């Protein structure tokens, strides 16, 4: 059964909102000089938050995450090919950067932050949803659109 675009968009919006919540939690905690609480009581989150990779040009990576997830939410709400390919572009970038950060955690920082893993999982799901939306519906006229190929 081909997934309806409406369902894919709704699922993307929900998952992007979860991503915003996770990234906002990390950003708020780290802005106070702390680190997210690791659920099993480990110190991975403290180590990752203290690492030199936690900031890019002085901006906390979690803040970039909030911006990325917010744009993905916008793309999910945006109908037509602009939303489809915009969402796919953002999801590919987010997924690629998440994989880079996960690599750093495993092999450079040698500590795992559960919240970062959760964010990487969220980004992977968003990539799959946006990929499905683009593959199945690119070039089609959204249901309810009056006219126009790329409405």
């Amino acid at each position, binding site marked *: 059964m081909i997934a309806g675009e409406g369902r894919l968009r709704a699922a993307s919006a929900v998952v992007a909102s979860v991503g915003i919540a996770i990234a906002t939690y990390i950003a708020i905690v780290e802005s106070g000089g702390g680190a997210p609480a690791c659920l099993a009581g480990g110190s991975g989150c403290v*180590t990752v938050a203290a*690492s030199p990779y936690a*900031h890019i*040009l002085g901006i906390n990576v979690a803040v970039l995450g909030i911006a990325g997830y917010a744009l993905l939410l916008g793309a999910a709400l945006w109908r037509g090919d602009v939303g489809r390919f915009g969402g796919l572009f953002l999801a590919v*970038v987010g997924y*690629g950067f998440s994989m*880079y950060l996960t690599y750093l955690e495993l092999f450079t920082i040698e500590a795992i932050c559960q919240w970062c893993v959760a964010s990487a999982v969220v980004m992977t799901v968003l990539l799959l949803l946006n990929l499905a939306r683009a593959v199945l519906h690119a*070039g089609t006229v959204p249901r309810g659109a009056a006219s126009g*190929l790329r409405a």
Partner: protein
Amino acid sequence: MSTRAAEKERLRNHRLKREESEQERQRWVLLSWGGVAVLAVCVIALLIALSLSSSQGGDGDIDGAGEVAADLEGIQQQGTVLGSQDADVTVVEFGDLQCPVCRDYSGSVIAPLIAGPVSAGEARLEFRNWVILGPESGDAAAAAYAAAEQDRYWNFVELYYRNQGLEHSGYVTDEFLRSVAEGAGVPNLDRWEKDRANGRWDAVIAKTDRQAKLHGFSGTPSFLVIGPHGSEALGTPHSAAHVEAAIARAG
């Protein structure tokens, strides 16, 4: 006859238009896929390059110099001591500049102490470099002590913590330390460079190590409170309130 021909021509034109429209759609979709792929690879590469560049440290991009200066403004600094020389109680922190827990304590314990009893003239703070995380911590300690020679020790220590990198990651470079010294407002950087290269800090660091062990401390940060009513080795306190209670007992 001519009507049928015209109708055929109309249908043909319609079909051609539809085919053209379909081809345009396919071109657009193909272009979009290609655009997304190329642009995404470029943006990912840019983000990774920026991340690697930002992680090097010592690039002069030191954060929080103004905030540290504002926090310490108007408080007397002499050598490694912050606060009034007339204060009855001295709070000594044994810390390692590479230690992430010490960095957290800089915000959660030291900052309230500075804003509270130190600003009120009830206590003074002393930070002793207990080097437990290897030679890079020794380099950082020597740089801090050299800043103390120009009464910018606490600016250096607090600014260092705000820009601390991952221990043993190689971020404690000469460039990073100089950036912290600049941000800390060390007036004469040439003198600071000479002072930090001075081998006498090794003896100070060794002495601090002996003192920490003498007090039974097992890790950084550890606190010692000294006052007219005795001294108390707190170890690693739970909060600033814990230290403030010890100040009240010692004073």
